């Protein structure tokens, strides 16, 4: 690449903030909509400083009505703006589903391409804070089932910034799924402009015995598991798809052709989660290479209980380790 890259450590929260700030500067028609996004800086602080820099017209805080807020964001997007709307907890997508699914995702299609919807819906998974069944869901699976939407789900600061930059230059509705647990995690992020394309999985750690496809907060958990398993001479490859639609099946399939064994892991409830889709796609691409059934390490099929009880439901590195050992017959 010839150019020197200057790195700093940023948290994922700072990295997303930076992506938004840079694009707010570049694109005068970019606006942010939501609740508590003004001087308050967003429920989880991702918008810190943006209100001060860009003012109340472009960082537009509003009444508590998510459905109309997403509708407004769509309306602005189809009329010359680019909108970013925040839904504080992923559980609240339920309040705006029609706007996301029937309007934003399908409009470009059923209007024959005449209408463009440059819209980013940011939302956060809060599965590991003990905030109870209505504040702990990981619902990404619903959205890969909606043609017309793209779905990004980064697991670290570098990817989050790069994917957000891509999202903010795309002209389609994008669901951008963050994770409260990851906001404070740090990694190297270049000072220089860069972006991460949609549809390219990232091999987070190479390995040869088992492939672990991990999503969102399960990426660091799986890396920690891989580290521990490495100490037992078990070599685990960890792959983060980074975007679920488009999904980079090829990178995953390549890994499977090498390892023959796959575990897919996410916080979301097991039944009907994205692991099933990823599994099916792996089967379609690499059936002959599979030495064992694909295994899911996922949330239990119960609502996430509140308080200190959530770790009994939401998966963790220990469950990944157990699954790997079991798969290898150890």
């Amino acid at each position, binding site marked *: 690449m010839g150019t020197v890259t200057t790195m700093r450590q940023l948290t994922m929260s700072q990295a997303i903030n930076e992506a938004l700030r840079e694009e707010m500067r570049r694109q005068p*028609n970019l*606006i942010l909509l939501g609740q508590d996004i003004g001087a308050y800086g967003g429920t989880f602080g991702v918008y810190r400083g943006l209100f001060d820099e860009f003012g109340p*017209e*472009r960082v537009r805080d*509003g*009444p508590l*009505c998510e*459905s*109309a*807020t*997403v*509708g*407004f*964001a*769509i*309306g*602005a*997007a*189809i*009329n*010359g*703006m680019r*909108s970013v709307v925040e839904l504080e907890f992923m559980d609240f997508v339920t309040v705006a589903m*029609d*706007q996301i699914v*029937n*309007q934003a995702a399908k*409009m*470009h*299609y*059923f*209007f*024959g*391409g*005449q*209408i*463009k919807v440059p819209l980013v819906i940011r939302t956060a998974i809060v599965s590991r804070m003990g905030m109870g069944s209505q504040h702990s869901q990981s619902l990404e699976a619903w959205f890969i089932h909606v*043609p*017309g939407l*793209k779905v990004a789900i980064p697991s670290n600061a570098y990817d989050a910034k790069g994917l957000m930059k891509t999202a903010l230059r795309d*002209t*389609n509705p994008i669901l951008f799924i963050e994770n409260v647990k990851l906001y404070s995690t740090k990694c190297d992020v270049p000072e220089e402009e860069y972006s991460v394309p949609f549809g390219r999985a990232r091999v987070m750690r190479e390995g040869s015995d088992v492939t672990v496809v991990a999503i969102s907060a399960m990426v660091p958990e799986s890396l920690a598991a891989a580290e521990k398993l490495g100490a037992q001479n078990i070599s685990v490859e960890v792959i983060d798809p980074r975007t679920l639609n488009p999904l980079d099946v090829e990178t995953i399939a390549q890994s499977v052709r090498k390892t023959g064994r796959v575990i897919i892991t996410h916080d979301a409830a097991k039944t009907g989660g994205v692991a099933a889709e990823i599994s099916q796609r792996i089967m379609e691409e690499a059936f002959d290479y599979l030495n064992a059934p694909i295994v899911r390490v996922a949330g239990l099929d119960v609502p996430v209980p509140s308080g200190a009880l959530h770790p009994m439901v939401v998966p963790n590195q220990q469950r990944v380790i157990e699954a790997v050992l079991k798969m290898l017959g150890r």
Partner: protein
Amino acid sequence: MASGTTIDVAQSLSHEMLRHWYEQMQTIRYFEEQVIEFFAKGLISGSTHPCIGQEGIAVGACAALEPSDLILATYRGHGECLAKGADPKKLMAEILSRATGCCKGKGGSMHLCDVSHGVLGTNAVVAAHIPISGGVALACQTRKTGQVTACFFGDGASCEGEFFETLNMASLWKLPLVLVCENNEYAISVHVSKSQATPNIADRAQGVGMRNQVVEGNDVLAVYAAMRAAVEHAREGRGPTFLECKTVRWERHSTFSAGRYENAEAAQKWRKVDPIPRFKSHLLTVGISEGALEERAERARATVAAAAEFALSSPPVSPDAILEDVYEP
């Protein structure tokens, strides 16, 4: 039932303009009759929701808008699309699922769109386009384009949460928006007396401090007068208006759903208040001749015939096209 204002407005209008509105109303009427015929012949699958009997609202409201102004409407929005200037040929082709349709044939009767004429789409989910219209108006306000946005919807829609959410936000943010409620007394089979406790839907706007007015929707002049005031108000930056246009629905909800009236007579009630003969007799009063009106009606028929002809002779949508436009590249 022309009120003082309506007469004032009517007198300020040129005969040419009045004849033009008459032609537009007739065009919409013939267009919808043609659509119903096509449906009966099996050329349209799914359903279609004629706006017959409500032409006065579409024409009166759109006449008060500039060409650069924007509208959004419902599945019952063929009339508004035509009144706003969308090409009848492309609309008819769309309704017949032809490749030459305004949405390349993929939208159909309930999803029409013509950005070049400010038609930002008709919607098939009741009330969903109301917040979208709020966002459209917000963009105009933020970008200071001077455009006004009008959103058309029904009495049924005014019971949906998103309607209220938008009412509140639009009022709060003083958006350049006119919410045009076509109260045709029914949401499929549910009569307004079974969906609201107050006499006027406009009361809801009052509840969030929004300027509002109840209008005789079968009188194109009354609609025009009220809309003109609302549009001026919005254009001056003074905020939104809620216009409740009282009207009567055609004899069915759609070509698919019966609509259920208490009796056959109720189903024909719209004929008694039909805005077209009503407007016609006004036009005769102000000195426009029967002949001039017949000429306009004839032109309307010809427009619709040409649209029907165009649509029928257009190719179907290709299988490849079905796969396109899911994403913007």
